[in-house]
C-alpha cells in the first residue's frame, strides 16, 4: 500500500486537483463540505465566479470582523463577502440558472458513484434523513459534474461501484471523479482511469475500485 499522507493533506490534494478543473470565465458551484475548500486554492489569475444556490453569484472570501453582514452567507451558511461584480437573486432564479445549465462546473461530495455516472450523496437508510438540499438540482444543471471523495470508505470498501447501494441523488449525472488515489472519468462505455495520485499504482487503484476500470492511453500522474 502507498505511503499514507495525513487526512488533511489528502483533502488538500483533492481540493487542489479539483481546482484544475476550473478555467477563467467559468461559473462554478461548490458543494458543502470538502468542495467548499476548493475555493481556497483557486489560482488568482483565473477569473472564476462561484455561484451559491441561496442567491449569490460571486462568492468572495470570508469577511474580516468589521465586514460581517449577517445577511450574507453561502449555501453552507457560512458568512462570506461579495466578490467583485457579484449579484444577488432569489432562490427560484438561482435554481433556474442551475437547472438551465448555465453553470460550467459543479464540484460536489459523494458517498457512492456508479460506473454509469449514478450518484448517491444524500441519505443513508436507517439514519436520520436531513434532506437533499440543492444537490438533486445541481447534478442536473451543470455542464460538468465532478465528484470529489475518498476512494474507499472508512472500512476500506470501494465507493466507486458497479451499481449504487444507497438511494440515488441522480442517475447518469457524474462526469469525473477525483479521489485521494485517482482521477476517473465516466464515459459512454464505463469508467476510465485518467490520472493516478502520487504513490498509487494502476493496479492498486483498479483493485480499490468496485467496477471495471479502463485505463486511458495517456494516463498520467496527478500533479497538484
Amino acid at each position, binding site marked *: 500500500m502507498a505511503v499514507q499522507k495525513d487526512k488533511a493533506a489528502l483533502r488538500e490534494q483533492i481540493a487542489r486537483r479539483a481546482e484544475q478543473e476550473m478555467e477563467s470565465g467559468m461559473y462554478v458551484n461548490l458543494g458543502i463540505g470538502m468542495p467548499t475548500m476548493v475555493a481556497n486554492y483557486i489560482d488568482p489569475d483565473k477569473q472564476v465566479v462561484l455561484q451559491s444556490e*441561496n*442567491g449569490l453569484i460571486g462568492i468572495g472570501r470570508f*469577511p*474580516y470582523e468589521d465586514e460581517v453582514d449577517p445577511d450574507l*452567507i453561502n449555501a453552507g451558511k*457560512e458568512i462570506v463577502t461579495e466578490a467583485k461584480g457579484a449579484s444577488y437573486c432569489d432562490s427560484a432564479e438561482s435554481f433556474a440558472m442551475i437547472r438551465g445549465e448555465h453553470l460550467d462546473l459543479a464540484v460536489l461530495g459523494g458517498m457512492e458513484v456508479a460506473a454509469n455516472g449514478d450518484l448517491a450523496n444524500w441519505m443513508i437508510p436507517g439514519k436520520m434523513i436531513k*434532506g437533499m438540499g*440543492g444537490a438533486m*438540482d445541481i447534478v442536473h444543471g451543470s455542464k460538468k459534474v465532478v465528484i470529489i471523495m475518498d476512494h474507499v470508505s472508512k472500512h476500506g470498501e470501494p465507493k466507486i461501484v458497479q451499481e449504487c447501494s444507497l*438511494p440515488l441523488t441522480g442517475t447518469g449525472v457524474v462526469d469525473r471523479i477525483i479521489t485521494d488515489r485517482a482521477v476517473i472519468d465516466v464515459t459512454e462505455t464505463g469508467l476510465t482511469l485518467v490520472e493516478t495520485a502520487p504513490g498509487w499504482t494502476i493496479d492498486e487503484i483498479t483493485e480499490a475500485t468496485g467496477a471495471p476500470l479502463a485505463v486511458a492511453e495517456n494516463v498520467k500522474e496527478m500533479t497538484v
Partner: protein
Amino acid sequence: MKQIYTSFDEAVQHIQDYSTIMVGGFGLVGIPENLILALVRSNVQHLTVISNNCGVDDWGLGLLLENKQIDKMIGSYVGENKEFERQVIAGELEVELTPQGTLAERIRAGGAGIPAFYTPAGVGTPLAEGKEVRTFDGKDYLLQTGLKADVSLVRAAEGDTYGNLIYNKTARNFNPMMAAAGDITIAEVEALTEAGTLHPDHIHTPGIYVQGLIEGKQEKRIERYTIRERTAEGGN
C-alpha cells in the same frame, strides 16, 4: 393602502389552527424573526409549514417545533435541529423533503398560477416514487405541482406603505416567491417608508403580493461565524 401593523401579535392573526404557512429564509438569514416569535405566542396548532429549513433548536422555526405547533414540514434540508429529529422519530412530525430548486420552483409556480411543471431533479431517485415521469427531447423529467399557502410570512430590508419590498443580499432567497404564493402575505421589514421613496426599478417584490406590513428590528443570528483575521492578509 396596505394594513400597517404595530403589533406582531396582531400581524399573525390570520394564521389559525391547521393553516398552511410559508416562512421565508435560508438557514437563519432572511427569516421574519418577530413574526415567528409572535406565532409562538399565539400558540396556534397543527400548522403545515413550508420553508427551506426549520430553524435551529432555539431560534427561528425551531421555536415553533419546540412548542409543538407544527404537524407537517415541507422543506429541503432540516439537519440543524435536534428537536426536529426527535419529533420525526417519535412520529409527531410529518416531513416532506423536496429538492431545494424544486421547492423554489413549486412555490414560484404556486404564486404564478402554474399548476404543474416538469423538472429533471429527482428522476431515478426515491423522490420520483409516485410521480409522473415524462420524456422531453430524450431526457426524463418529473411532474411537480405548484405550492400555495394560506399565509406567507416574509422579511425584507425595506418596505413602503404600498407593500413594495426590497431585500438585502442573500436575505432575499425564498422570500419573493413566498410573498407571491400566499393568499395573505405579511412582511416584516427593517425600515418602513412612505410609498414613492423606493426606486421603482429596484423593487424586488411589488406591493400587489403583500397584504400587511410591520416594522421590526432584527437580531440576525449567525449560524457559522467564519471570519478571517486582519493579520492574515492575502489569499482568497
